[in-house]
């Protein structure tokens, strides 16, 4: 018998690799471009990727009981999948490309040795999907933790960006010290232009999770896509027609098992009749490596009986019920009863409950924040809010003429704001700690906070204070006094305070515009105030 691989499918396989590389590159470029590039309003952002994601669309829509218009694009994804199957997983998904690449690397290094008959259940991702969707019925949004786009973007934002920053600053330092002035300057200026955020709380956890997800490919090829990905599971449920149907020519097949061994998602192209069309991602590997070109994907329109993953009704029911029982635990938290001082949300953030329903923890706002002030929350927002964005003024303040986080948010958890609107949105209130403030307690002049206050008239006004010193003298200095009505809670005062460890002026969430409860002063005219 003639032994020859199919040229057509080898070509398609190469095309698929080019497509994956292209979409990954696009994702990466858009990721890097998610920063202030000189314009107040971003034109190209990575948001579009998210809007094509039906898992995010479904979970946030169910969770918030609101349909965010941009998510209509995900319908295209669903229709495409309905007709063509999970080709998007194989050809477009950027996280899929990462896993495919590392699976390839691990195979080449012989760390990954695919077995002949791998019967490890592919069901966990469907269980995860059920958990995510069932939880969203109780308005607990878990979609973002394992959604591939959120996962990739968040990992890049929190782990890869600081890494890139280190690389640039080390390169600049090294080239300068070696005397290559212009090269050093190139590195240094690029660093300043990209404004790469370099510090994140929980970078360890988020970075290690990415590493773990990648390393799992050494155990099973595309481990994530096979066993974990809820978005892939959703697409699997929607693949019905699979117009290109796998066909093995029994005349040519030499029963070598190579196709099933090398199948990226264990969709079992061989033996004939076992092909799981809802698991196939059309990577074309089987058809390309078949030594006798026995495998083809001819067009056949009729919907066949779905050869999917076996999920018993009992399992589905049990998972759903368990989730419905467990999900509310996320909400049994003090944060729901009373505002939490450190929970300073970005300007434009929806009221907390709605915000939690919509935020997918993708990390776009963390990436775009010019001061590194937006950080992934751990305890600040309760268990539901892990890795949602929270402003930590000590790390970075909210830049006055900046509304970038509101522009990049893919789900509308942060309402899009113009610069003019943003400057009026109050996200918290600053309070002076007189026990630590220099003029009050040490009798020294300072007023750094007042200098930096960006609103006009300034929210930080000055009063004259007298401090008795141990020498028996009276030190007279100007000291800060916060006008809470003018303060927008941007936190630059806390950020620039000379008492760096525990600043003498601190912002807490009280007074935030998005909350009706977390308020401080009634708006009343005090005696003597001019009538408004």
């Amino acid at each position, binding site marked *: 018998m003639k032994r020859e691989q199919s040229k057509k499918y080898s070509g398609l396989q190469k095309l698929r690799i080019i497509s994956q590389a292209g979409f990954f590159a696009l994702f990466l470029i858009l990721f890097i471009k998610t920063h*202030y590039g*000189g314009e107040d309003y971003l034109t190209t952002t990575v948001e579009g990727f998210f809007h094509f994601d039906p898992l995010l669309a479904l979970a946030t829509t169910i969770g918030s009981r609101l349909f965010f218009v941009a998510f209509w694009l995900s319908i295209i994804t669903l229709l495409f999948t309905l007709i063509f199957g999970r080709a998007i997983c194989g050809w477009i998904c950027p996280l899929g490309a990462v896993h495919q690449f590392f699976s390839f690397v691990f195979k080449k290094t012989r760390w990954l040795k695919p077995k002949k008959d791998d019967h490890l259940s592919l069901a966990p991702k469907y269980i995860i999907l059920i958990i995510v969707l069932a939880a969203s019925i109780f308005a607990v949004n878990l979609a973002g933790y394992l959604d591939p786009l959120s996962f990739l973007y968040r990992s890049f934002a929190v782990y890869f960006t600081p890494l890139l920053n280190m690389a640039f*600053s080390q390169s*600049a*330092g090294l080239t*300068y010290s070696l005397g290559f002035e212009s090269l*050093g*300057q190139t590195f*240094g*200026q690029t*660093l*300043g*232009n990209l*404004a790469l955020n370099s510090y994140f709380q929980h970078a360890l956890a988020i970075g290690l999770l990415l590493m773990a997800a990648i390393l799992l490919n050494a155990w099973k090829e595309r481990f994530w896509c096979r066993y974990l990905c809820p978005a892939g599971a959703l697409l699997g449920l929607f693949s019905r027609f699979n117009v290109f149907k796998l066909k093995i020519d029994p005349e040519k097949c030499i029963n070598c098992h190579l196709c099933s061994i090398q199948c990226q998602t264990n969709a079992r192209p061989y033996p004939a009749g076992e092909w799981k069309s809802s698991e196939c991602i059309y990577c074309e590997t089987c058809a390309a490596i078949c030594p006798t070109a026995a495998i083809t994907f001819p067009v056949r329109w009729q919907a066949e009986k779905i050869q999917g993953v076996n999920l018993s009704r009992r399992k589905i029911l049990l998972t759903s019920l368990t989730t419905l029982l467990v999900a509310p635990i996320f909400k049994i938290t003090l944060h729901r009863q009373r505002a939490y001082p450190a929970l300073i949300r970005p300007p434009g953030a929806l009221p907390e409950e709605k915000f939690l329903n919509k935020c997918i923890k993708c990390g776009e706002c963390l990436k775009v924040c*010019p*001061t590194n002030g937006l950080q992934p929350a751990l305890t600040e927002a309760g268990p539901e809010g892990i890795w949602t964005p929270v402003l930590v003024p000590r790390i970075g303040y909210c*830049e*006055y*003429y*900046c509304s970038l986080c509101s522009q990049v948010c893919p789900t509308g958890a942060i309402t899009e704001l113009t610069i003019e609107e943003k400057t009026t949105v109050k996200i918290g209130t600053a309070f002076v700690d007189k026990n630590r403030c*220099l003029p009050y307690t040490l009798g*020294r*002049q*300072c*007023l*750094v906070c*007042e*200098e*930096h206050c*960006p*609103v*006009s*008239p*300034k929210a930080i006004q*000055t009063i004259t204070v007298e401090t008795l010193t141990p020498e028996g003298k009276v030190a007279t200095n*100007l000291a800060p006094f916060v006008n809470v009505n003018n303060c927008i809670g941007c936190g630059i005062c806390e950020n*620039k*305070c*000379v008492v760096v460890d525990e600043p003498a002026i601190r912002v807490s969430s009280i007074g935030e515009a998005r909350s009706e409860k977390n308020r401080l002063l009634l708006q009343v005219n005090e005696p003597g105030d001019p009538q408004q």
Partner: protein
Amino acid sequence: MERRDFIKDLVIGGVALGVSPGLWAQPAYPELAVVTGESPDRITREAVQILGGIKRFIGRGDKVIIKPNIGWDRSPEMAACTNPEIVKTVVAMAFEAGAKDVIVMDHTINQAKRCYIRSGIQAAVQSAGAKVLLAEDQRLKKVNLKGEWLKDWEVYIDFLEADKIINLPATKVHSLSKVTLGMKNWLGAIGGSRNQLHQIIDQAIVDLTAFFEPCLTILDSYRILFRNGPQGGRISDTRLMKTVVAGIDPVAIDAYGATFFDYEPRELLFLQLAAARGLGKFELEKVRIEKRTV
């Protein structure tokens, strides 16, 4: 002319010259040039011309660094940063004098790129053919400022490597030092924990002024910030003065700048300290000032 008249004129002239010998001993140029007019470009050029022209300050082949105030993320009409047209003119003049290389930089307070762009200074400088540099941490070097208060402090070496420095401050009020003009502008040439300098701000200003030696200072008072300094935020916080004040004596320039806000120069502690240190004079009546309107 009658011979008698001629002799009379000669005598009068000779007496006039004779009783004011100082006139000959003094240099030809005034110490401060104060020029008012509609065009920022024209008043800047005129002021430098009064001082003897740009070639008096910049030589052929010089590496020049210009230090405007680009501290804040504010547009030009907020008067928080130096007027971009004036920066552009000074860059152009430096090139006209034969400068080899002209760079413009500041250690900003808000995100650097934002400040460079919104202030209009980046575009202005680039259109004049020079480059703006973002302040880089790698370019900080700890040096001995030899100040009375400030000793070792980090300075951007771009300022140490340049042949000539031109100081190009804005004119603003400040709650602590009362005003921020040319001398306080040097806080933007250094790194380190700048917020600590507020504790003895006047001495810090003087120590930094003594360290940096600009060949020329041009105070941009085209639009001044008289309220909510040093970053303002509303156009109503500013006032159009359409003036520049140029000179070499950093103390005299700031003394003049203070008068825009109705301060008597002697009210300002940093001017007194600077004068005591021998950095210049703040008694404006002792300064030769030439005022012009163009």
